[in-house]
């Protein structure tokens, strides 16, 4: 266990934890976009920055990655911190002018859009938090979507920006997307995502459509469980 100070409060935490986890445990609100408990943090959005004093050195760090250490002093709302968060929000609002999530967040943080930034029209609501990519690769194991390009041309999508060939239609990306950029359209028997339409599997017992057939095949291939066993929904199992 290490003890340190956060916003003037003395706190204790497990060594190896990061500042964000500890702050949240103690009820301190730090905004984030690219952080999710099911995937490893990447430090991409920079909203969670805090000021850390360690020894004589004070610097701005991302709390989602910064490991807690004995004796550090963390401030989560200094002017420098708020300046970074304001810039990040204004930049993202200019990138994704249609995102209601961002607008609501900004409102809560008391941040107005920067009128000098000409709003983009080609990025949709994607903030490039890369949660979807990580979920697809690390959690699902499908690696159907990935990053491409770099800088302002960085994108998320299937290779060659074509309809995904290896997508299994599980929808993990859509569930984890913080800004509702990834669109998944579902009817009872069909699901549309990443340019593909997936046939849904009806439950052998109750008849409810519960998962894409491709997803069940993927699980069957991976785990060796026969398809017949997988064709039963969670509630009927």
């Amino acid at each position, binding site marked *: 266990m290490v003890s340190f100070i956060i916003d003037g409060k003395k706190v204790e935490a497990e060594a190896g934890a990061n500042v964000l986890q500890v702050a949240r445990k103690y009820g301190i609100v730090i905004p984030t976009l690219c952080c999710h408990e099911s995937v490893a943090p990447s430090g*991409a959005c920079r909203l969670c*920055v805090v000021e850390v004093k360690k020894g004589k050195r004070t610097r701005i760090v991302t709390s989602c990655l910064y490991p807690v250490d004995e004796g550090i002093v963390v401030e989560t709302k200094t002017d420098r911190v708020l300046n*970074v968060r304001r*810039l990040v929000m204004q930049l993202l609002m200019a990138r994704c002018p249609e995102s209601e999530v961002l607008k609501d967040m900004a409102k809560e943080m008391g941040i107005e859009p920067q009128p*000098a930034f000409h709003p983009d029209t080609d990025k949709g609501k994607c903030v*490039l938090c890369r949660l979807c990519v990580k979920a697809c690769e690390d959690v699902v194991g499908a690696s159907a979507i990935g990053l491409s390009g*770099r800088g302002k041309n*960085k994108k998320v999508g299937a290779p060659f920006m074509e309809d995904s060939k290896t997508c299994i239609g599980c929808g993990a990306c859509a569930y984890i997307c913080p800004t509702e950029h990834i669109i998944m359209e579902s009817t009872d028997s069909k699901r549309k995502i990443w340019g593909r339409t997936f046939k849904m599997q009806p439950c052998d017992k109750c008849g409810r459509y519960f998962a894409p057939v491709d997803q069940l095949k993927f699980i069957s291939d991976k785990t060796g469980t026969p398809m017949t066993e997988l064709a039963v929904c969670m509630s009927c199992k």
Partner: protein
Amino acid sequence: MSKINTLEDLNKAAKRGLESIIPSKTKVMVGMATSGIASGAQEVYNALAEEIKKRKLDIILSKTGAMGMDCIEPLVDVLQPNKPRLAYSKVTAKKVPEIIDQIVKGAVNGNKPAYRMDEEEFICLNENKPYLKGPVPKDLEGIPKIGDVSFYKKQMKLATRNCGMINYESIDEYIAKGGYFSLLKALTKMQPDEIIDEVIASGLRGRGGGGFQAGIKWQTCRRAHGDIKYVICNGDEGDPGAYMDRSVMEGDPHSVIEGMIIGAYAIGSSQGFIYVRNEYPLAVANLQRALDQAREYGLLGKNILNTGFDFDLKIGKGAGAFVCGESTALMTSLEGKAGEPRAKYIHTVEHGLWDRPSNLNNVETWANVPAIISRGAKWFSSIGCKNNSGTKVFCLVGKINNIGMVEVPMGIPLKEIIYEIGGGIPGGKKYKAVQTGGPSGGCLPDSLIDISVDFDSLWDAGSMMGSGGMIVMDETTCMVDIARYFIDFLEFESCGKCVPCREGVYRMNEILNDICDGKGKAGDVELLESMSQGIVDGALCALGSTAANPVLSTLKYFRDEYVAHVRDKKCPAGVCKALIRFSVSDEKCTGCGVCLKKCPTECISGEKKKTHVIDQTKCIKCGVCKESCKFDAIIVE
């Protein structure tokens, strides 16, 4: 070739090498680094080979790297027994027969050498070997000694000690210069901690830009937990306007390799990597050859110098990404992935390549190590200035007379680099600024011309040492355009991982483009300033957190130029197309008609011998008229 196991073996190789450095017959050397080849050295080399064959002469034809004075290349050095070494500048294939004539006749006439060398410095051995016994022949006395040439006078070559002196294809010549004797000393007479102490005592700071104490870094890596450790050489010299690392990798690859083997032994590493830019094919080829030679001699691989120490090196080629010069991105790239940086809250000396302790230094840093081990920390730290020991290699380019690579003791006044070594600004133009540190650095204006060139002084002035680019700018350089240039560069090179860099630099570029296009608005400059702070604090890696430097430093020293662009819609330097107009001076135009012929849009008209006129509606401001006018009659305002 048999393996080198003992001091005797090494001495034998050195003897062979010395015989080819100062042979008993005539030797002709052509400067064949990239800069030389680009200016035509290959044609010169071929012409020499042909002429020697045609005349059936017993002359050794050899290749060497870059001496540094790129503006006088192609360079051909002639070394005849018991004579000074003569350097012929700007040699073309046409001039080759005459040079051969001079060699055969033993007399210099007509095409005079640019300078002569009477002796050769062997830095690592701490001695000078004369090329000749007795006095310099009378007819050669008039040729200036290299030490009297203003470009070389204030220079001191440590890291580039062998560049342009030895044949980069010969390991024996490298050994003759004292090469691999430091390795033998380190492996047989020094404990790893002693080596680290020596490097710490030398005060060697990382030449890649950060200026961190190399020895301390080695020590941290040595102490880090883990059985497998890596040493890495950063040869991803991405700063535009800098090529000193390329020159060392091309001209003296063994110095880097030897430095790395010593470092690996000190740190406790058995595998190393040299990461080289994709744009440097010759550096890759020369390094690869050198690695093969070292392996053949038993200087790499298992049981090096029969000491039981194992170490090997691999080359990793970049694929064109500036961000890969950042240590974590470089390591990600070496792992075979897209080179995105990661947060460095846990240092790479503890968790680096494949999550193992990794010690990364740049080319120039590694190249200094053998010299430090052979001559000692005390000697090294006596060079340079306080807290900045040794030398630094710079590439002096841009609006300067003597363009080239220079190595100077730290702490030299900037003025001496610009006006003595560099020979001042061409065309009688006024010096405006020098840009150091590449895209992450800043500009130093005329008022700082006396500044001491060292890590700390440059940092205090709002710029940085960086890897060593020095781009000189004169009154015709627009500082807003320069800021835009760097921001545009960084926008293109941003990896796109974090928001402040990806989106922030992109927005700064938008604003700067507006300013240069005459669409700047009141408040733009202030917005750039406030964004800069947010980017400095918020970006993930060093590329991002220094991205605003070009804007901050030009704003600091050249705010008036920004004001002229935004408020007056004028570009005082006459660069920004939207804000300038071309016209013909009534006074200077002779009506020669050259511009009229060259203009791609046919917007210039006028009778012979009468002042010409530019049709402003058709002018695309390409500037070809100004470039081609011999009478300086084109006015840009």
